[in-house]
């Protein structure tokens, strides 16, 4: 009599942590997939003392490296391709902010041309991504 009941109560313990394991797996896969979305170009961002937090869900990035190479969504593109690509993105999300992830040593002329393209696409809200200086 006693032996049988002992077995019954012993079997309940592993099933209770099963749900936790399932949650852990779900969260693990969520986290790993988010981090692989965008890689961009290798750059070193300029530093700044001021700056604002910009909500990630409103941002589309334009990457410019030190040699002046431009990339959107991991695609290396020419400067004149910015206008049609940004127009398409703006149609999906009119509140879009274009964030420039530009290397501090990139020539300013490339940035000026890129901003000229944005003006033509009517994407007027931009942000220059920086790393905050600890002061």
């Amino acid at each position: 009599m006693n032996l049988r009941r002992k077995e019954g109560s012993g079997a309940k313990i592993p099933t209770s942590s099963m749900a936790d394991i399932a949650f852990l797996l779900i969260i693990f896969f969520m986290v790993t997939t988010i981090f692989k979305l965008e890689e961009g170009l290798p750059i070193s961002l300029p530093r700044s003392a001021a700056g604002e937090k910009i909500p990630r869900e409103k941002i589309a990035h334009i990457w410019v490296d030190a040699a002046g190479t431009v990339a959107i969504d991991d695609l290396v593109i020419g400067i004149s391709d910015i206008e049609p690509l940004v127009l398409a993105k703006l149609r999906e999300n009119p509140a879009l902010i274009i964030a420039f992830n530009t290397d501090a040593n990139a020539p300013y002329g490339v940035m000026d041309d890129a901003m000229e393209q944005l003006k033509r696409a009517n994407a007027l809200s931009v942000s220059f991504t920086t790393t905050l200086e600890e002061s």
Partner: protein
Amino acid sequence: MAMFSRRSKISADMVGDSAMSDVAFLLLIFFIVSTSFPEIGLPLILPSSQGDVKQIKRENVIQVVTARSGAHFINLEMEPTELPQIKVLLKERLAENENLIISIETHPEAPYGSMVEVLDSVWVVYDELRLEGIVREKRISLKALGLE
């Protein structure tokens, strides 16, 4: 019967303990995920290309020009000005003129970093003024110097 009831009590306690670490991990992972680092940037609204061209009075504009070398000049003076002095000057001018437009003009071959340096200083000046109770609308214009 007495023995059985004691055992079931013990096993009930043990379930609570083992789930404790899982709950702790879940909380840890939740906070790691929810505190994703916000991006820091200097936001700016570009002028529309369809907009009208406005005439602006000379005294309402201050030019900060960055040369190819990355040196900064104010109002096309011959001698370069260092960033701390630029900040002091901008602060004075902004405090006395609420319509002041800061025109950041950069040589196309100058490094982007030196333009951000100026833009950052302008932001710091606006922030400092706001702390002193002087609220100014941000009027910043970005421009590339023409190659002549």
